């Protein structure tokens, strides 16, 4: 299968990229590694007129610390995140999730911003963002804004990002002493999209984000409330997952997935450090 043809643009600055996206006469789609977008284009589920390759925009890559947050440029590749000492030290939840993301060859191209922009409901990084309560920096030709994780995910492949906007960076709170994190996913095969997965943060309030449960990653707020009241009452936290609106998929009906969610939560908490 072949993608529908498009005009390929490779801007070398962010402003150039934003200018192309601002032209609403054409459907322009940013290309940020393309590891999920390209299969969709091959199936012609995505067919932009213009593809804006962000690979030539150096200012979109890099990892730095800013005011207690770790700021990750949207075009930072998973490979670079895995190699980053800052990520390992200051965002251990992301570090724990990275090896579960696809395969080495995909991690060599795939980017954090690209993954969040597409927001596949089975992907790991949206749930990590949500569990950490981070935010997403967006910019268009006419301005910039930051959107909190809780407001970023709208629906299946739908996010707060507008077509003329680029994700420029992702902001994740820096872990402090005493914060604990857990990550667990269940896959049929190593590197597959998860049957279910969960990212858990106690920093110091609990935030729990499931993925592969619905059209978006979902926070388990009732379970969080249970644990905020009594961090040892894991049984009650698992019971509180009853309120999650979980969809079935080819791996199982909603009851099966809810059961797995409970198992994953227990194991994630059991593995917290």
């Amino acid at each position: 299968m072949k993608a529908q043809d498009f005009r390929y643009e490779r801007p070398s600055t962010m402003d150039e990229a934003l200018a192309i996206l601002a032209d609403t006469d054409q459907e322009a789609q940013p290309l940020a590694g393309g590891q999920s977008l390209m299969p969709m284009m091959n199936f012609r589920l995505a067919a932009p007129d213009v593809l804006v390759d962000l690979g030539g925009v150096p200012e979109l890559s890099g990892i730095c610390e800013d005011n207690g947050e770790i700021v990750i440029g949207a075009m930072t590749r998973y490979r670079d995140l895995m190699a980053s000492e800052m990520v390992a030290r200051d965002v251990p939840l992301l570090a724990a999730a990275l090896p579960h993301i696809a395969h080495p060859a995909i991690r060599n191209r795939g980017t954090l911003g690209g993954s969040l922009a597409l927001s596949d409901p089975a992907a790991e990084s949206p749930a990590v963002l949500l569990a950490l309560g981070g935010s997403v920096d967006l910019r268009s030709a006419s301005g910039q804004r930051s959107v909190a994780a809780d407001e970023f995910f709208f629906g299946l492949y739908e996010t707060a990002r507008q077509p003329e906007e680029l994700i420029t960076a992702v902001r994740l709170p820096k872990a402090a002493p005493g914060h604990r994190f857990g990550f667990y996913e269940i896959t049929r095969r190593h590197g597959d999209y998860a049957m279910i997965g969960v990212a858990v943060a106690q920093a110091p309030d609990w935030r729990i984000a499931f993925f592969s449960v619905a059209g978006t990653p979902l926070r388990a707020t009732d379970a969080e409330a249970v644990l905020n009241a009594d961090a040892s009452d894991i049984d009650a936290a698992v019971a509180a997952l009853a309120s999650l609106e979980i969809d079935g998929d080819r791996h199982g009906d909603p009851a099966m997935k809810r059961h797995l969610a409970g198992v994953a939560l227990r194991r994630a908490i059991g593995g917290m450090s």
Partner: protein
Amino acid sequence: MSGPLTDLDRPNSYIGRAVPRADAARLLEGRGRFVDDLQLPRMLHAAFLRSPYAHARVNGFDLEAARAVPGVHTILTGKDLEGVVEPYVGVLSHLAGLQSAPQMPMAVDVARWQGEPLVMVIAESRAIAEDALGLIEADLDPLDPVTDPEAALEPGAALIHDSLGSNLAWERTVDVGDVDAAFAADGVTTVERSFTFGRHTGVTLETRAAVAAFDPSTDQLTFWYSGQAPHMMQFIFAKHLGLMEEDVRVIAHDVGGSFGIKIHTYGDEVATAAAAKLLGRPIKFVADRLESFQTDIHARDHIVKGRMGLTADGKIAALEFDDITGIGPFSMYPRTSAIEANQVLNLTGAPYEIENYRARSRVVFQNKNLMCQYRAVGHPIAMAICDCLLEDAAREIGMDVAEVRRRNLMADDSYPRQSASGMKLADLSHQQSLEKLLEIMDYNGLRADQAQARKSGVYRGIGLVSMVEVTNPSPAFYGIGGAPIASQDGATVRLDAGGGLRISSSVTEQGQGTNGILAQIAADRFGIPIDRVRVTTGDTDTVPYGGGTWASRGAGIGGEAMLQAAVALRDQVLDVAAVMLQTEPSKLDIRDGAVTDLDGSERMTLSDLARTVYYRGNELPSDMKPELVATRHYRVTDFPFVFTNGAMAAQVEVDVETGMVKVLGFWAVEDCGRVINPMLVDEQVRGGVVQGIGGALYEECLYDEEGQLLNASMADYEVPMAAEMPDIVVAHVETPTRTSELGAKGAGEAGTGGAPAALMNAVNDALSPLGGRIHQMPMTPERILKALGTV
């Protein structure tokens, strides 16, 4: 083993040795010759509009916009091929009563499965053809789909073919002994189980692919394809495109996996050949992965109710089952889609002494992709029915599963004989294979480990299977029923002037190492270093006539033909040498590429001999007619099939919270008779095991009730990958077949046939302390948790 064929001390003794494949270097350097690598002058590319519905009336198409796309050359519909392609029907006379309907390469009036070709766009590139596909307006009226095979047989069910009057394609029953009395006898414990075997498919890493070129000046069609049976395809194109067989050349160079997928008549490939004939230009069609999942034949899809009675001392009193299998809307041409059901009836219980056996199979049309012969045809069903019932029954009476086999396996000294279903069996070693298996796996050690693990809440299980595999088929498989499928194969061995051997064979190479073992056999029997042997397979213009490689027949049949040809050429060369050296042939030998005395001292190189014959015939007596080429053909006689046997075991650990199964270990003892190359055969067995693990744990073509395939990509259809697979230990018992001098039986399908039963037994062994049991494949986490009552 001893005997002349494994005299490893002799020069050029290659049979039985782990000789690396010469082909491998080429493939490792990226110099393979796969179909999509081929570029011909003026070549066009085809893409197909396929039915989005499982069942629909085809009213017509608006092709105007598609035709207007620059680079689009021709667009053909199913109607356009009427009169160009003669319809085909997948029936065989020895499967009495089998019915199917005439089939065209692309649907004409009614589309009957999602993915059936409707329209072919031929363009300057595949991408342009796909651009045009998107602009075709198809006028289709959806019809009620019939997807469930049991519902398809209900009175009043919609008919897939009105002309056939029923959705039942074929039915066969076997009834031996007195089954009812045996089940009713005192002291017999009966277990009854309902099995479900999901659909899966071959997922050859190279998709189906074809390049068809037609020369109107000579009426000759050349068809390069990724396939297993060139001569069969030659017949099919000749018959259905109205050509002379001698004008059809079919070439299969490197084939990127086949597993039985690439041995059938696919509409898109026939349409490609037909279009090449109509246009007089080469046309390439390469299936993409979506097309592969929707149209490569699927396999299995059985629902079976079975029961077994076991006496108190663990003897099988009786075995009975009722099988129903869905085959899609047509019986596949020309092999038919009834062979698998036939095999299930033939093979179930074949390793064991069973006097009372009754079985029925019904083969049913449905609106899903066609089902047909894939690796280990019928075997995983047959082995699972019998061996899973046997282990469940043994558990019921408290008997160890190895012990219950000892009490029921046919004795190694009881051959030749028949199975309960009437199969002729010879040269098998079930008892020896089982004992060897128990030894290499350390059965008692694993049982101790299992008991220990359970104390800490870890659920491990061990499952066994004793199995037979159908290999080296005689004409009784297909030819007897009228199929254009050769059961015999030919081999030609030619001594060239340089002293090297050029060999060719009608069996084909799909990665098993066929070319390598043919070279081993020829070099060994003729007496020449293997690096002086060159092999040709996969070209109907240049190889002898034969069946190709399927049904685990390449080594056993093609290998024996090669052995006979090499021996014949050796005798011919020695006749010439004896005249030239003025001695008797019996006083000469061929070793290491030279004619020698019996003590090995060199008398003349083969090159000297050949150059004399070819260049300086004047030096030879005028009445001498030297022949430096020999051809021999071979077929199996006296037996319909050459059965092999094996014993396999799986050790699994079930995560009873998630339902995930981890395969901790797998052991296979295989008796494929003479082992020609242990390195090749061991990995063939392992590859088969991994496909068996796939069918048991992972792989399933998931359809919804409307007949829509839900997981037609490699992301959603899970084939086994390295991280989840165990080390697989392979050992052999070698009982050569009496049907050939080489003594080789097939080995390629054993793992796929046996592993699923071993896995199902292992999982049930693990679940048994919790009271759960599962008889549905694949054994997914959800099904395991349902079996445990967790969800």
